[in-house]
């Protein structure tokens, strides 16, 4: 039976297994979950002659004693089942003695072993070469030199995998790693300070290190926000054209609205994030691939540990400033389960890019220009401060327990592998599209249904009467007629929305938000933000009579510096409650922003939390605590502000 031969790649985390797998297998790699866990192994297939191979990249291990779920699962894959036919130990040649220690303990598992001696170039840079032939002879185990970056040596390794050669399981219990390493390593006698050491001297400088880091972080965010704009423009134009086509091709009615607002609008709300996410993941992956991320964790570990997180929480939290969904997925690198959950649960407090249009709209409408930057910064700081507090409390209550271990290798600086970077960007983007996409889409449809229906005939008749009047007054049409008709259309949209199911729900819960100064229209805005936060903008647009303002358009236009298209800002300033008093004031705007900053309104984020924590408990907890905090925050701001006389 020309069956499939299973080959497991094992080794320490930075040995280069992932790049090696990519070179070994020409086909796509598939992440596969271990049953009942979010831990993944990566599988790929290859064919050598008649033999089919299944290559499995297992999570990194340091020895046969497992310290984390990842390691447990990797080891049990080898020892319990499905036992692979061959285990290929990927070793980093620059750390030979430590790797031999790993090899020695793996040999006690009684599985056939083969060695891939990787990163010979790094070893050379450090001033040593390893004689792989001699090593193979002394070990009694086949040793193949490989270069995970260039792919050298991979063909020979692959041939060996596919060959009929039988490999015996050896017991290397008598091996003395230090001695063996010395025997096969030749010192090149190059005592110069390596590039890595020199770079660390600058990047980890006691005074310069942190400022350099901050500049880098700032640079990344600048890149994300400005680099994404042309793509967001394209998406927004595309959405507009499609909606125009639908509007032209269909009679006004449920189908047209469903297609234009529900479907195209829903899909647009998802797609508009993609450029930012791609750039974010690209930057994170590049920084990770070069080895800089370990330096960032080195710099931040202490302050983060003080609030109950870890140095490794930095990347997920920073990513969450663009979008919490990839940020939460990035928490997989945090070994300690409690640190990981704490990070996941506070990640949504990092003000994501979807909140930004809301802040900009409200700040622009109700605060003087010279205060704008300060208030924006304050909103971001609010999220950070609350996150620290929540994490601190959590780690002393529900998530009480031992601190994580840091013990982090700081790899040599190297050129990132473009294959690995590309794969990471693709995986994250796909995960976002699939997960966030379905959730955002479903919620957008629900919100559409609730805000479109019911469509009482008498509303329509009332406006038709006005339309007839316009036609009678301007029998030839013309500009004035068009303007009047547009105005009627806006008023009609407004009237429909005001009696929609969503509005009825909002009116029903209005008392809850009264202490925060919100009237029911603002509440509708809050409710409609649940699929995607920036949907509050088109909703407010309609409710305040501006008409169909597009969320994507709004987000793009403010990034371009033209934030008041459609006059939404002016409309908000003039907006009135049912009793005629102003609906907004700077204080109410502030309360609303605080609400948005702290509220868990993103279904996609909650879906990501469920996936990564494998239970409903944590997404429910996150939703509850954040929404409660948001309410308390908004009420506090409004009540205290009013008491101080700012109303």
């Amino acid at each position, binding site marked *: 039976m020309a069956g499939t031969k299973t080959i497991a790649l094992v080794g320490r985390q930075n040995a280069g297994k992932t790049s090696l797998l990519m070179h070994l297998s020409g086909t796509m790699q598939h992440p596969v979950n271990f049953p009942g866990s979010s831990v993944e192994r990566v599988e790929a297939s290859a064919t050598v002659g008649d033999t089919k191979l299944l290559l499995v990249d297992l999570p990194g291990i*340091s020895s046969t004693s497992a310290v984390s779920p990842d390691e447990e699962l990797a080891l049990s894959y080898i020892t319990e089942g499905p036992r692979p036919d061959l285990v290929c130990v990927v070793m980093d040649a620059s750390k030979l003695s430590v790797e031999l220690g790993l090899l020695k303990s793996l040999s006690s598992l009684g599985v056939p072993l083969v060695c891939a001696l990787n990163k010979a170039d790094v070893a050379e840079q450090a001033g040593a070469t390893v004689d792989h032939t001699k090593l193979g002879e002394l070990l009694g185990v086949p040793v193949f030199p490989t270069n995970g970056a260039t792919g050298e040596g991979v063909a020979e390794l692959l041939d060996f995998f596919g060959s009929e050669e039988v490999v015996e399981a050896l017991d290397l219990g008598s091996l003395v790693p230090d001695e063996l390493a010395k025997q096969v390593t030749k010192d090149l006698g190059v005592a110069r300070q390596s590039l890595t050491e020199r770079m660390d001297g600058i990047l980890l400088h006691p005074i310069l290190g942190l400022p350099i880091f901050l500049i880098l972080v700032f640079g990344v965010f600048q890149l994300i926000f400005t680099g994404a704009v042309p793509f967001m423009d394209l998406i927004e134009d595309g959405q507009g054209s499609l909606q125009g086509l639908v509007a032209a091709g269909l009679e006004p009615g449920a189908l047209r609205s469903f297609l234009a607002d529900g479907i195209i609008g829903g899909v647009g709300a998802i797609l508009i994030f993609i450029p930012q996410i791609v750039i974010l993941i690209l930057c994170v992956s590049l920084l990770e691939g070069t080895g800089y991320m370990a330096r960032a964790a*080195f710099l*931040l570990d202490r302050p983060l540990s003080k609030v109950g997180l870890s140095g490794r929480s930095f990347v997920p939290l920073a990513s969450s400033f663009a979008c919490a969904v990839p940020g939460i997925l990035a928490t997989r690198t945090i070994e300690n389960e409690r640190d990981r959950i704490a990070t996941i649960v506070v990640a949504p407090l990092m003000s994501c890019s979807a909140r930004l249009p809301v802040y900009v709209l409200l700040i622009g409408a109700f605060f003087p220009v010279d205060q704008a930057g300060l208030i924006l910064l304050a909103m971001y700081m609010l999220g950070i401060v609350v996150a620290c507090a929540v994490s601190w409390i959590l780690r002393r209550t529900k998530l009480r327990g031992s601190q994580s271990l*840091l013990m*982090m290798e700081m*790899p040599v600086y190297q050129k990132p592998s473009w294959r690995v970077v590309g794969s990471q960007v693709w995986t994250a983007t796909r995960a976002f599209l699939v997960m966030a996409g379905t959730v955002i889409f479903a919620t957008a449809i629900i919100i559409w249904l609730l805000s479109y229906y019911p469509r009482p005939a008498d509303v329509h008749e009332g406006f038709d009467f006005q339309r007839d009047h316009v036609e009678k007054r301007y029998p030839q049409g013309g500009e004035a007629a068009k303007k009047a008709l547009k105005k009627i259309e806006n008023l009609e949209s407004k009237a429909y929305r005001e009696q929609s199911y969503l509005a009825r729900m909002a009116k029903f819960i209005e008392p809850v938000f009264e202490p925060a100064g919100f009237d029911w229209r603002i509440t509708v805005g809050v409710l409609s933000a649940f699929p995607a936060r920036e949907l509050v903008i088109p909703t407010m647009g309609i409710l305040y009579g501006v008409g169909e303002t597009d969320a994507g358009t709004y987000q793009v236009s403010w990034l371009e510096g033209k934030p008041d298209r459609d006059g939404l800002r002016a409309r908000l300033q003039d907006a009135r409650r049912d009793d005629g008093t102003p609906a907004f004031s700077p204080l109410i705007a502030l309360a609303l922003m605080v609400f948005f900053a702290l509220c868990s309104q993103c279904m996609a984020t909650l879906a990501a939390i469920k996936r990564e924590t494998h239970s409903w408990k944590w997404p429910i907890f996150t939703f509850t605590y954040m929404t409660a905090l948001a309410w308390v925050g908004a009420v506090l701001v409004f009540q205290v502000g009013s008491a101080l006389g700012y109303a």
Partner: protein
Amino acid sequence: MEFPQPIALSDLKPGEAGRVESVDGDDALALRLRDLGFWPDTWVECVRRSPFGDPTQFRLRGYTLALRCDEALRVHVLRESD
């Protein structure tokens, strides 16, 4: 003749080096330290501390790693003066 006393790795100052004498304990932390190469007679050098004071960067066996103070506390070294 005085025998040098072993000190905790966390007491090694940036620029100082030493040889590992032992690693305390048998828990996950100790096991992991041994997995990372902290074996008796291993040469280890303290490179630098983070600007916030913790963790510390160490060099051993051809690579560098970051250890927190409470992790480095477990390793006993004999300081070597160059």
